[in-house]
């Protein structure tokens, strides 16, 4: 009954466990996420395109899956690894179990391995290319495949997850999150702006935030040129998160360069990196990235710390920062740049995910900050 699956890393390490998702063989960059909840949001986050995600928390699947807790229509990550997949789920909101969900979405998944050992290896060696297979169980063959797999650097993964056409967005936040927005002093339903979101693989909770605040939201593919975006006549442009390396996305950088100064801009994660690149900064690949829901970020202006959700393998290089940008936020764990602002134009970006989902709601204020800029 139990089907064996193997994960091979490019450094030659092989982990053998049980398959619990779809059958098949996939290659990807092996990374880890330290969130203890939110596996369904993580699975559906398009930024994981091309990656095999390892959950550090060992018991996964406990509360099943449901129709609401999704950040995209379906998962787009390469593979999924857990220590223990729950054979039952218990939650009044659930409508199915994780294993079936992975199968139906054709995601290869591995359970039962020493995930902590894997995470320590990634921490020490850096994120690595890997192959996850239920078909080829030959260690040497798998390791070779891992070595020869393409990796993330220099690849345009955005085109694999962005929409094909311009769409309008009308889904709001869930009721609990709206309540929290209000508790934090944000306004629900009163915004009257029209916002254009450049979708590079956008998590749905971002446009939900904009919509809940009362705005008209238009979502455009990430390769939409500037003139077309400006033609839409919006009050501001949002640059979404998305997968992989920002450097090869020259089309997006060009578009953003043309938009700066013409309309208020807000970027999240990849959007923040693209904004920085458009301003002349460089990005670099982190050893193993930041993926989790407990990353502390210091807001340099207020001196306050927000606990944030992060999911990125690249970051903006501080030494390369052009004069027109100033640092607004820092990651407290490793001091890397977590936020920048354009000194003249109305444009800012953050490396973390204020829309959370999964993760804490400490950074909601960034949406309210952008909202004020939209009103101007």
């Amino acid at each position, binding site marked *: 009954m139990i089907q064996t699956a193997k994960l091979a890393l490019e450094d030659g390490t092989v982990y053998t466990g049980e398959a619990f998702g779809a059958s098949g063989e996939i290659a990807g960059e092996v990374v880890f996420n330290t969130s203890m909840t939110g596996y369904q949001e993580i699975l559906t986050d398009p930024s994981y395109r091309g990656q095999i995600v390892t959950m*550090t928390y060992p018991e996964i699947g406990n509360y099943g899956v449901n129709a609401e807790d999704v950040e995209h229509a379906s998962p787009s990550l390469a593979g999924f690894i857990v220590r223990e997949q729950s054979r039952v789920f218990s939650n009044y909101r659930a409508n199915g179990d994780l294993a079936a969900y992975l199968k139906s979405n054709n995601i290869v998944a591995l359970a039962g391995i020493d995930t902590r050992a894997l995470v320590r290896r990634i921490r020490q060696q850096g994120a690595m290319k890997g192959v996850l297979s239920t078909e080829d169980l030959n260690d040497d063959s798998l390791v070779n495949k891992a070595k020869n797999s393409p990796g993330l650097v220099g690849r345009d993964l955005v085109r694999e997850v962005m929409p094909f056409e311009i769409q309008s967005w009308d889904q709001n936040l869930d009721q609990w999150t709206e309540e929290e927005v209000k508790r934090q002093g944000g306004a629900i339903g009163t915004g009257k702006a029209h916002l254009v979101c450049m979708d590079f693989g956008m998590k749905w909770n971002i446009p939900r935030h904009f919509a809940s605040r009362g705005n008209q939201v238009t979502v455009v593919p990430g390769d939409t040129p500037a003139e077309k975006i400006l033609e839409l006549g919006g009050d501001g442009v949002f640059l979404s998160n998305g997968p992989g390396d920002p450097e090869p996305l020259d089309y997006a950088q060009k578009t953003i360069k043309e938009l700066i100064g013409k309309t208020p801009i807000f970027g999240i994660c990849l959007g923040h990196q693209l904004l920085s690149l458009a301003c002349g900064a460089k990005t670099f690949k982190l050893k193993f990235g930041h993926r989790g829901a407990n990353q502390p970020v210091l807001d340099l202006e207020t001196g306050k*710390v927000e606990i944030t959700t992060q999911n990125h393998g690249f970051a903006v290089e501080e030494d390369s920062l052009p004069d027109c940008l100033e640092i607004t936020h820092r990651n407290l764990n490793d001091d890397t740049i977590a936020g920048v602002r354009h000194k003249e134009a109305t444009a800012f970006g953050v490396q973390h995910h204020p829309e959370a989902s999964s993760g804490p709601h400490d950074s909601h204020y960034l949406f309210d900050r952008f909202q004020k800029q939209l009103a101007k």
Partner: protein
Amino acid sequence: MPRRDDIKKILIIGSGPIVIGQACEFDYSGTQACKALREEGYEVVLVNSNPATIMTDPATADSTYIEPLTWQMVEKVIAKERPCALLPTLGGQTGLNVAMDLDANGVLEKYGVEMIAANAKVIAKAEERDQFKLAMEKIGLDVCLGHVVHTMEEAREALADVGLPAVVRPSFTMGGSGSAIAYNKDDFEVLCKSGLDQSPVTEVLVEESIIGWKEYEMEVMRDADDNVVIICAIENFDPMGVHTGDSMTVAPAQTLSDKEYQRMRDASLAVIREIGVETGGSNIQFAINPADGRMIVIEMNPRVSRSSALASKATGFPIAKIAAKLAVGYKLWELPNDITQKTKACFEPTIDYVVTKVPRFAFEKFPEADATLTTQMKSVGETMAIGRTFRESLQKAMRGLEVGAFGLGSDSKDLWGTDEQPDEDAVRAKLGTPNAERIFYLRYALKMGMSIEQIHNITHIDPWFLDHLLQIIELENETRQLGALEKIDFDQMLRLKRDGFSDRQIATMVQSTESKVRSYRLEQGVRPVFKSVDTCAAEFEAYTPYYYSTYESESELPAKGDQKRVVILGGGPNRIGQGIEFDYCCCHASFALREIGYESIMVNSNPETVSTDYDTSDILFFEPLTIEDVLNICDATNPDGVIVQFGGQTPLNLARGLKEAGVPIIGTSVDTIEAAEDRERFQALIEELELRQPPSGIARNMEEARREVERIGYPALVRPSFVLGGRAMEICYDKVQFERYVAEAFIVADGQPVLIDHFLEGATEVDVDAVSDGTDVVIMGIMEHIEEAGVHSGDSACAIPAFSIASEVLDELRVATEKLARALNVIGLMNIQFAIKVEDNVPTVYVLEVNPRASRTVPFVAKATGTPVANIATKVMVGQSLQQLGVTEEPKPRHVSIKESVFPFRKFAGVDIVLGPEMRSTGEVMGISETFPLAFAKSQIAAGVTLPTQGNIFLSLSSRHKDSAAQLGKDLTALGFNLLATPGTAARLQEEGIEVTAIKKLSEGHPNLIDYLKNEDVELIMNTPNGKGARTDEGKIRAAAVQQGVPCITTVAAAGAAVRAMQALRDDVLQVEPLQDR
């Protein structure tokens, strides 16, 4: 702007004696806080009445006051020390209450002391029900609907709001009696009517029933800049209705989706902000309706709590230390995370394992108490286990509990498949009402084929948890079917171990032995690895070596270096008879080893303790204390020595097995330890040394018992052998009593013999603690008990120095101690209990018991004499001589120290409080002064006994004590008290011409003593028992006194001491002095 420089001296108030609901966790938090503040250069003044704490070691604070925790006494400390600030949030509810009293009585204002971390307004807002409810409504959070009503009309209106089922709680009834759930309108009417009748103020609280909802706790920290982080979310296995201290709990939360978790996190942040706790940790409890997700805030503790200790140990995040630093102005992001060193304390720990906490109960000590688990906490301790899965951590926790279980079933505690296997009705009954054994009955229910749905409907325990129990049972059944050890292949063995099964359980399943399973498993190559607790799920490197075992592929334990290393085995969960005193000893062993360049390795499973703090030892293993787990650690660490004599009975029980497995046990040999416990070997030794023991005998049947008692003589102490902690012990004064109790003892003994000792009536009991290095023996302290022999030494009060024993007799004790230490070749600590019986003015010394190990009294002796007893003993055990250490003479303290015991009777309504040979105290306090009466007075105040200065005192003494009654009567009258007495005692007093009001016995109608108690017309009761038991008149009186909070003294000796103390309190003023100046 890191820290405040406007404050220099900070007062910390501890939590006092260990009681149910307040255990070692506040020693842990207080100790961390003291260290953290002193590290920053602040002067720390500490007040705590509990001597058995690391916190009250003179090295922990700058000025340490072992004084009663009343605002009046703390005011004296404030007047003397003039601290700038008071940090009220680290000493549990006791510390918080004293701080609030100081504020309410204007003391803080008078002396200009600032309350830091949380001020009085904040504390009141969190703790007062109405204020809290308003605050929650303000931030849009639900609280449990409830209305206080005084009439049936009001009750019906309330019901319309809260709906059915509804909880009806009459106000101010004894022990909360009369509380019940109404499931329909008829029930509701009946309950409210009787509730209004029962309530002395005709008041009933009608509340919405949330019994069966899911229960969660969030540990929150906030700094002065309003940065807030969640340290840990804890999910209760037992749903609402069981106090969280009595619930099995699991970290992190298991069955919440991120949406639900973030909603709870949002609520937690909103609560701490609205209540306004400025800095530090708080604990917020939530209930969630599993059907629709409705969330209710149950309560908030604006302070470090038991759960904070658990959260600290579960995540590695030092909550108390950080709370102390935040209180002096640091921001979370300015403080380093000690575990990773490179990252900051401002983050939310994430864990990659599952933590299970299981409470430990002591109902066997209180057979008359109601053993149903309710919203009032009844457990006395807890164990915590870490595993990679819930199943592994649960099974580890079950064996860490040390109740005879080695996991979930398949051990000697398992009734399944035995003659006592419960039937379905019995199982259903045990599932229906929460109780200490419920986890075992959940297994029986699953074994008998009840479905998860059926069990969930009865218990409301989340199906996720229940299914995991089922998975454990499925694997058990599968393994049982294999039938033989050799049939367990590598994969099956690994699966078993990964699910937390112990070798002992596997042995039971395949009819083998633990040691065979162990060797077989090791041959297969199935051995555990050790992974670290690092706050960050391996995202960063951890520098603090804090480990748990699991069955995975990679171990993180570093190889042994050049340093010699010694393993210290801790005491496991607190229980009556084994608590913080032993943890104190283990910590000191670790400190001593580190002092002399050894690597210290601690093994313990009790999350409340200082010993499981991440920086107490060089390496910490958070593991159950069983042979298997300890051997695994020894295999992995290859220690040069293992210390078993500091952790109480727990490690001693392992000593033989460890020795046989070749573990190098240091100090007194295992043979010696056993010799002292073996009755016959010990008797021979006593004779050889020409010492004396009370006459004693062994009986295997009634006939032998009668013959033995003839020889031994009355009064006789009867007890079953091989039953620990004085259970079912009884003193028999005549043949009638003897016949009855011996018969009972044979039943309890269950096939084992019954022991009969001559009871030394009226003898003085003495404890002697000594250290021996095999050559020299140095006495550390001689403690004279206040109560006569017959009261368990752990329950009696005692004094250093001895107050009534002649110096020749003390010398005789010293000689006997030396003889015994030499004869037994004790290396390390030893404790001897003596009894001195005076007949015809000639004192005779009897040896009652020798314990070649650390005793409960070690911390008291250390505090009373200023001698680091455990430290010395540790160094001796690794081979240093007493000469080398410069320890050659018995310390001679200049003041009087008295230890008094503290009991949990208030938690067990209706239990008789008479002291006897069975230990029932949970904790102790210490009173220090220049004279015996003042020290005794302090010890009583500290123990919560308010010695009155005027009013009515009720006397009822056993016929054996009528002469003492006359003396007491005279003394009390001279002090100006009015006397009340039962007819017999009154007659005796009147004979002496003492004025006394005779009042009726309970059976004679009204007004009787219970009426006086209810009318608050009695200040103190002195009652020595004729009989024992909750059903007797006396028992009822004593139980009523406890419930009314009226002190009740049950021995003549203690009554005499109390009289002297009351006299002293009238003539003298209590002074306070720090240990450092004594």
